[in-house]
């Protein structure tokens, strides 16, 4: 189907065709907004830009930020190197090498990731890794932008850095058992949310004038 077009003829009088008076009028519009937004009363200001990074916009709750790896009770990483995230990743940005624990206690999980790397430059921030993770190990709920890096290799986040944002997960390894409904009546209260320091700091600090 061809695009339908409508021809509109703009009638210009002599005043418009003189060019300069209209330029001055346009400048006047711009200047009006400039003075309202800088000197005018706060209620009338329409400015949408913020002083990032001194001011940080509040992100939606499910915003997908930089990855993190959650930990267990004992501080070890929850990830068991099952490769679900690496398998589903459409960008192939997750590299995991599995290892076996030296002397596990009888009920410990034997497998853990020796190497866990995410190339944040390759990542397409789709969040499928979080969906796929059966262990609540990988999450993207950090509310942290990937900071700009000077060298590409700096964008490859390794296990210690990913774990530095990790918190203890509420999920129970191997499931909470058959009576989990009785044990956990209020699931919301058990959630530990990661709050980057600078967000809290910036909330309290007024915007720079």
């Amino acid at each position, binding site marked *: 189907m061809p695009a339908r077009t409508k021809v509109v003829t703009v009638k210009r009088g002599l005043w418009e065709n003189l060019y300069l008076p209209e330029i001055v009028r346009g400048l006047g519009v711009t200047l009006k907004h400039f003075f309202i937004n800088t000197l005018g009363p706060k209620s009338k200001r329409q400015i949408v830009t913020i002083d990032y990074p001194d001011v940080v916009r509040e992100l939606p709750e499910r915003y997908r930020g930089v990855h993190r790896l959650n930990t267990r009770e004992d501080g070890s990483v929850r990830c*068991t190197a*099952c490769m679900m995230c690496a398998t589903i990743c459409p960008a192939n940005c997750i590299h995991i090498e599995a290892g076996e624990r030296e002397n596990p206690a*009888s009920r410990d999980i*034997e497998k853990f990731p020796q190497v866990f790397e995410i190339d944040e430059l390759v990542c397409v921030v789709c969040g499928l890794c979080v969906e796929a993770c059966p262990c609540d190990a990988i999450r993207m709920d950090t509310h942290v932008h990937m900071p700009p890096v000077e060298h590409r290799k700096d964008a490859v986040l390794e296990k210690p850095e990913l774990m530095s944002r990790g918190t203890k997960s509420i999920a129970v390894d191997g499931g909470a058992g058959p009576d989990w409904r009785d044990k956990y009546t209020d699931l919301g209260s058990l959630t530990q949310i990661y709050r980057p320091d600078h967000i809290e700091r910036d909330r309290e600090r007024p915007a720079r004038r």
Partner: protein
Amino acid sequence: MSEHEPTPTPELVTVKIDGKEHQLPKGKNLLEALLDLGEDISYFCYHPGLSVAASCRQCLVGIRGSMVPSCQTTVSDGLELESQSPTVLDARRQMLEFTLVNHPVDCVICDKAGECTLQRHYMDWDGKPSEIDHEKVEKPKKVDVGREIVLDAERCILCSRCVRFCQEIAESPDLVFEYRGNHETLTTAPDRRLDNSYSLNTVDICPVGALTDKDFRFKIRVWELYATRSVCNGCAAGCDTEVHHRDGRIYRMVPPKDWDMNLNWMCDDGRRTYKSVAAQRLTRPLVDGEPAELDAALAAIKERLEPLLAQDRGAIGVVLGADASNEDNFMAARMAYDFLEAGHVYLADSPDNGLGDDILRRDDPNPNRAGARGCARGDLGSSEDLARDLADHKLEALYVVGDRLDLSDETLGQLRGLKLVVVQASEPSRLTDKAHVVLPAAKWAEVHGTITRTSERAKRDLSASRFGRMRPAVEPPGMARPHWDWLKRVGAVLGVTVEFESAHAVFQEMKKQVPFFAEAQWGGKIPTVMLRFAGRRG
């Protein structure tokens, strides 16, 4: 494990399955017959190579109102059964839930995930959370049961396939069940370990991840692997195998799932032969011990061999390799007899090691001794003959194909006295140290080609598949090339034009020229496929 005899055509009888009539061979195992018909039936304990245990009760069918395991039933005349009715499906679902009562469902860290029968049936048939709400029985985990194998008794669903395998196939009853009922546990028999030479087959036939391979444990998830069909080069038996690899690295070798010459089994030593592919390898041609470019190496051969060709050719020796493919040996033999007119042709092989048995393994550790002999026109000298001829100064030049030539220090010293020693080998050795020109060769997992299996077998004769076909799983390292390709290039610099584009072309020529290979088959094209997309496994 029946004798290889012409079986009489079985009598066909009429069987009614879900109200539909089918003609099935009388006396056949009902489960097998149903699977052949394409019926979707779940089972754990049944294995076509083992006796019937009927312990998992997963293959239930309804016959005259009662649930009967189909693996324990034979096809008989007038049999009426239900295979997909709601009652039967519900019975199977309940059996599956029962099987899962004590299973830890730790697929996350289980090496079997992706090729696990329990996982597959659960996804196909059930897919709902368990309604059983008492604690699972805790059993030993990570038990070191054998040289190659770790046992996780919790994952075991007590199908007894491994127990039957050890008794019936490996003839070494290493595994037993202890305790009863809910606490029944797989363990090793008193004073025994799972150390028989076929133990890794129990890992393959385990429908869950109870028995896992120490070498493969936690290395990679199975769906990430690529499978290439090839032939094991561990001994003269030449078992069919699937080489599982990824990114140029081989992770394991398993017998192919389809019923083939090695009855779905492989020996433990054979499975480990993949390690030598990644071993220290020759990656560049060497001329007098120094790395050289391809052209320089070939020029060095030409320069040193041409004066000899003008003289008495009886002083040139060629050594065929018992580890090289039929095509490689055919090219080497052609060069030896037709072009060089070499006076001495030898065969380099390893001596019999006495490790053979009447299951699969042969005494002869060379993959292709028979093929090398088949290419020869006349008798081949042994390595002792070679040592004697060297001591008697009968040789002036020697061309060695393959890695199997093992000479004493004294004989190796005499090699330096020759005008030219060319060795085509894949690994550095004492021989390559002494050679004037070394050409890096590709190994079995890197080439197309055929090998000749020893046809006489203890339990059945499979002369139909006397030739095994190798397909490349990984790229050869550096400048390594197949033996036949090096021989072609050496021929080219010496002025013999040999127009072979591929190993297949060499094979066709060989089949035409050598009567020994008249019946050889190149084999169909079996593409390398990622296990993720290779259909159902487990």
